[in-house]
């Protein structure tokens, strides 16, 4: 036993994530977990957006004036950009969700990575169309 070569740093290590955050580990994960992660994050963001949407709709009850100012805000390019992201998240979450519904009943399990690639590709293509349409190119 050579104590001279013991190399204890004593530095505290990162404790592994547990509980509600236990799913958030991404390092060393494969494509299926990336899909899961994307679905969960887009899902959480969409739920957050839903509350925002309800809040905005509430403004309708406050009369035409406040609604018009909100609409002016939405014509801002940055907000339009965020809205396009919203559409992207909906497409990704929806198409991947279809993949999960099918694969999750035991159909086409062997092709789950191909399904995910297709979902992302279609979303990306549609996203491109949406962005071009939003900014008046097409």
């Amino acid at each position, binding site marked *: *036993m*050579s104590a*001279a*070569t*013991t*190399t*204890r*740093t*004593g*530095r*505290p*290590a*990162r*404790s*592994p*994530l*547990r*509980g*509600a*955050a*236990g*799913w958030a*580990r991404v*390092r*060393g*994960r*494969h*494509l*299926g*977990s990336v*899909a*899961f992660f994307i679905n969960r994050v887009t899902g959480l963001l969409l739920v957050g957006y839903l509350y925002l949407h309800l809040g905005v709709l509430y403004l309708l009850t406050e009369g035409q004036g406040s609604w018009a100012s909100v609409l002016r805000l939405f014509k801002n390019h940055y907000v339009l950009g965020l809205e396009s992201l919203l559409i992207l998240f909906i497409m990704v979450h929806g198409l991947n969700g279809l993949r*999960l519904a099918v*694969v*999750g*009943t*035991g*159909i086409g*399990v*062997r092709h*789950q990575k191909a399904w995910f690639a297709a979902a992302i590709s279609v979303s990306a293509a549609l996203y491109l169309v949406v962005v071009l349409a939003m900014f008046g190119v097409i």
Partner: protein
Amino acid sequence: MTATEEQVRHQQGTGQARRIRISRRRHGAARPQVDEFDVAVGPDTTLLDALREIRSHQDRSLTLRYSCCHASCGTCGMRANGREVLACVTPLASLGSGPITVEPLGNARVEHDLVVDMRDLYDSLEPAGRPLIRQDERLAGQGGDAPVLPFARYEDCIECGLCVSACVIAGSDPAYLGPAALAAAWRTVTEPRGADPSRVLAWVDDEQGCWRCHASFECTEVCPSGVDPAGATMALRRELTRRKLGRITRRGRGRR
């Protein structure tokens, strides 16, 4: 403080050394700490070789599990650079070229250093009732028209716990049955040997059973033995769906 130059230029090594960062919880400590070691490596050195070298010549207090050295006992499971591996069949060459971070398996209670408590895994496997030996028919390299030759062999699952460690759901929900137990359940359903598979299907037909899976497929990716727990979980769902639909259609047609 790192190992001496002399130890690094080991007679077997090519003069190359790799740094191994082990995240280990010492006995009585509340949190794990990081210890760094430099190890001389050759072209075929595995992670287990390196850890045994550290244990033998640098730090005899390093505790880790290993036995067969060829991915059949399943005891040397750990996380290397965040990914679940069996140390005995993981060449250091496959772990990049920088320092290697080694941690114990996740979703299991760490006893000390890289040793985790396997009790929960075996408790979860027991209700599946899967025997150790299965019947098989095809040898490697046999063509489609080759004669069917039956033989007995060990189940693929070596109870290593890599799948449970990799599972995104097991990380946040300890009540989940887990990929190992579900894979074992599917094996019992496909090879019941005279027993009634309905008992096992009823056991997994639960919100914490096969329906709790969120299809990350990580378990299948990390399994060193080709068990495909994710495929097994989906197959259980398919079987349960088929049975339920069958019951509904039978009732619809006025038959029981």
